[in-house]
């Protein structure tokens, strides 16, 4: 694969997704390799996201690369008014690849246009977080043995949920049937439904899922956040409909798995953790292999 930035999930073709997933499987089998010896990766976290940063740093460390960077904007010159442009042009002198998280949407795309070294977007505001999407694909393929023709349930906040939007885009290559389960206020936006319509892909919309849960191959949970509701009474009435409990999973397919981008608040009850379909912590583990695959592929060592 030629060396290029990963800013948006749509930067990669289906073949490139599959190449990353195959590489991630190689890293899962053999996670400690010295293939990044001599490389420096910068992790620039202009807003804190400890989980994502640690996952990237673990990926680089296990491959023998060195890390530099910062973990929140309070420790950087951006609090002194330095522009993103100047920070990127400076740091690109110190590193072979920049992993960045920035609260401004499109910040990573802009960085990729001015930076002489590749950029990996680890989240730009509410926009894109492509390594999350690739690790979701990896988790789905690993647990189901395939990506094609699956029934994917997306539950919770489908309006603002960046992860479900990117995952939808990526899965559209694999003849997925989507089940969107959300309160009215947080329905999947029309632009994504039109996107599926144009591709001739099937989707169904429900407000609850107990009657249909037996169809699911994957349940992808997202947080329903109180601040997303214009009417607090509506939030109180609906929040419990979107909490997953173990007793809801009695009639599910044997291979069905529950995914969640983490961190969760209360949308997956603790009693699901002991259920065989709980997969969200392994999903986080898969994030390290997927990020090893992304970085080593972009740096051209795999």
């Amino acid at each position, binding site marked *: 694969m030629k060396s290029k930035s990963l800013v948006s999930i749509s930067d990669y073709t289906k073949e490139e997704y599959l190449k990353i997933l195959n590489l991630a499987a190689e890293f899962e089998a053999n996670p400690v390799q010295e293939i990044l010896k001599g490389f420096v990766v910068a992790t620039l976290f202009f807003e804190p996201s400890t989980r994502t940063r640690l996952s990237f740093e673990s990926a680089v460390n296990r491959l023998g690369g060195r890390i530099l960077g910062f973990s929140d904007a309070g420790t950087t010159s951006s609090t002194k008014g330095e522009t993103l442009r100047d920070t990127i042009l400076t740091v690109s002198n110190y590193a072979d690849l920049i992993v960045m998280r920035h609260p401004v949407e*499109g910040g990573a795309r*802009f960085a990729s246009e001015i930076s002489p070294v590749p950029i990996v977007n680890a989240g730009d505001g509410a*926009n894109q977080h492509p390594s999350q999407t690739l690790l979701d694909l990896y988790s789905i393929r690993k647990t189901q043995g395939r990506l094609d023709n699956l029934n994917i349930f997306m539950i919770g906040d489908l309006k603002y949920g960046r992860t479900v939007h990117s995952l939808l885009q990526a899965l559209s290559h694999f003849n997925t049937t989507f089940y969107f389960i959300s309160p009215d206020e947080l329905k999947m936006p029309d632009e994504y439904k039109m996107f599926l319509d144009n591709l001739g892909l099937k989707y169904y919309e429900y407000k609850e899922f107990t009657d249909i849960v037996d169809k699911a191959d994957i349940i992808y949970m997202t947080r329903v956040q109180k601040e997303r509701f214009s009417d607090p009474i509506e939030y109180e009435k609906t929040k419990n409909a979107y909490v997953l409990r173990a007793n809801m999973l009695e009639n599910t397919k044997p291979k069905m798995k529950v995914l969640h981008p983490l961190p969760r608040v209360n949308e997956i009850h603790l009693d699901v953790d002991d259920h065989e379909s709980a997969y969200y912590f392994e999903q986080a583990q898969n994030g390290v292999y997927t990020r090893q695959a992304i970085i080593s592929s972009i740096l051209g060592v795999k």
Partner: protein
Amino acid sequence: MKDKKQLVVSAIKDGTVIDHIPANDLFKVISILGLDHIDNYITFGTNLESKKLGKKAIIKISYVFFRNEDINKIALVAPDAKLNVIKDYKVVEKKVVEVPDEIIGIARCVNPMCITNKENVTTKFQVVNKKTVSLECHYCEKITDKANLVIIKG
């Protein structure tokens, strides 16, 4: 009807006439084409009756001839605009505007959290729907549609 128009906005010898501009968007067209920064003789009429647009505007600019890529920029606000190229009081060429595939500069992204609204970055959009004039931001990937289109002052 034709005579009446002649009375409102007098004829030019050489230059360009832009007709069928929605009256409400006249000043946006002036801004997009940078007509507020040139010294040429310009006349315009607005709130003229139009069967198609309700109220329309017309601009006549002496000794200015536009390149297609420049004139297509006004398609964002005046997709029905028609141009007459005038030489020696005669129409020598008629042009219609065409919505381009990509818009660079000109429009502001509707998303306040977009990098183009935070730092000195030129806006760039893919036109995802030419009929409704729907613009997808190259940076934040959000849609700016005609209803919330803001033209960047030249």
